[in-house]
């Protein structure tokens, strides 16, 4: 009987009620390549997605997101093989998005090793798809991906589709609220204005969405430093951040980001 080992869980250091804060590596994929753009445009090839996925896993990423950035254009997700190989070496949650349109698409990706799927274009076209997938596979596997672009004159944000190529005229905050009602389990919130700029997350956007939803919000787009991550959590209320540029260009690494996040009081996972 190891009664001595019994102890109280550590208290969260910050006053905001958040669960354990997640550090997610986001890998945008075009064809066989890991790529990175600015404002989701001007894509540059970074390298081999699986090699990067494995490196980020070993460096302590809490989750990975794979996004097929041209899938909606071609009407299909191309990532099945990449996902299957990744699942051999990577034992953390894997979210896959891009071009997912049907229950069959979801089933194939889940059977290939994905844990969650991210929906944008097809869900905006037919919102019931969120409910259908949540009903069949559970809300926990439905991430609604929102590509948000600021409207001119401070009139909120518009949802874009097809990896930022098309307008939908939908208001981001209203869509987020609806997505939750339809059964979304998480929101991946990408600021197109900030994406790839290294100038920090769109805190107002995160706060606006977070104030109307009860599910976790993953902030994406613009992380240039750990200060930006801390602001997304403390000022925006984000539950996780998706990082790309800062990792791909090796401007920092996951152990350093984790240590700095912990030092700032965020409840991040403990690693050996």
């Amino acid at each position, binding site marked *: 009987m190891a009664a001595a080992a019994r102890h109280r869980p550590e208290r969260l250091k910050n006053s905001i009620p958040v669960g354990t804060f997640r550090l997610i590596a986001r890998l945008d994929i075009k064809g066989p390549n890991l790529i990175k753009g600015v404002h989701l445009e001007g894509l540059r090839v970074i390298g081999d997605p699986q090699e990067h996925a494995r490196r980020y896993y070993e460096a302590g990423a809490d989750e990975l997101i794979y996004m097929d950035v041209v899938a909606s254009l071609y009407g299909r997700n191309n990532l099945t093989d990449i996902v299957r190989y990744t699942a051999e070496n990577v034992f953390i949650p894997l979210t896959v998005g891009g071009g997912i349109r049907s229950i069959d698409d979801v089933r194939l990706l889940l059977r290939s090793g994905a844990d969650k799927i991210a929906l944008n274009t097809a869900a905006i076209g037919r919102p019931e798809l969120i409910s259908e997938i949540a009903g069949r596979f559970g809300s926990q596997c439905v991430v609604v991906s929102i590509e948000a672009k600021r409207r001119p004159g401070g009139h909120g944000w518009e949802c874009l589709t097809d990896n930022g190529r098309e307008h939908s005229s939908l208001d981001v905050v209203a869509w987020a609220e609806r997505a939750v009602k339809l059964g979304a389990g998480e929101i991946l919130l990408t600021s197109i204005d900030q994406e790839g700029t290294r100038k920090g997350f769109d805190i107002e956007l995160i706060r606006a969405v977070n104030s109307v939803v009860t599910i976790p919000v993953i902030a994406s787009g613009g992380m240039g430093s750990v200060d930006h991550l801390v602001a997304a959590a403390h000022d925006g209320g984000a539950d996780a951040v998706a990082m790309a540029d800062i990792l791909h260009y090796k401007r920092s690494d996951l152990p350093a980001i984790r240590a700095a996040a912990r030092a700032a009081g965020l409840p991040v996972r403990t690693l*050996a």
Partner: protein
Amino acid sequence: MSRKVVVVDYGIGNLLSVTRALARVGADAALSNSPNEVGAADRVILPGVGAFGDGMAGLAAAGLTDTVKRYADRGRPFLGICLGMQMMLDTSMEFGSHAGLGLIAGTVVPVPTTTSDNKPHKIPHIGWNRLTPAGDSWNSTILEGLSDDRDTYFVHSFMADPTDPAHRLADCDYNGRRVSAVIRRDHLYGCQFHPEKSGPVGLRILQSFVAL
């Protein structure tokens, strides 16, 4: 003679990840929906995500409900993961009342929608949380030898509430709310978190399960 680990395939969940993780720790593991193979296994893992009623219906449709119950009665190790853990209990309150497998006495209840300070918090509970001892020693269990780096990945909206506190082996803390993380009765184990998605810590737990 290597131990045959069977992962019950009843059409629910990311089964590939469970078998890949078992392969990584050197287990002789296979997916199966055959009552004979499940019945003859040395170790059985019941995975699962999604709604409780669907999970039980899927198991029944595959003709595996009684097979799993009989297996569990025969003294060989069993591990339910996430929904598979919740299905080990008597009943669930998720979308109406549903009967479970009744392997461990208790019910499945919603994760509280507020923190212990009565502030709203996020549901589903998604993230990495620290396993903390809930009662019995972890010696000779699937948690033996875990040290400070024992955060595992949770994603759930409901949780197990075993009737007998002695069946709680580990808990985690979600904003002051106590969540049952590992339950145990003899050789029967349930994990609310996903060991196959919890990095090296999760792999170690699976390895310990295979080695029981």
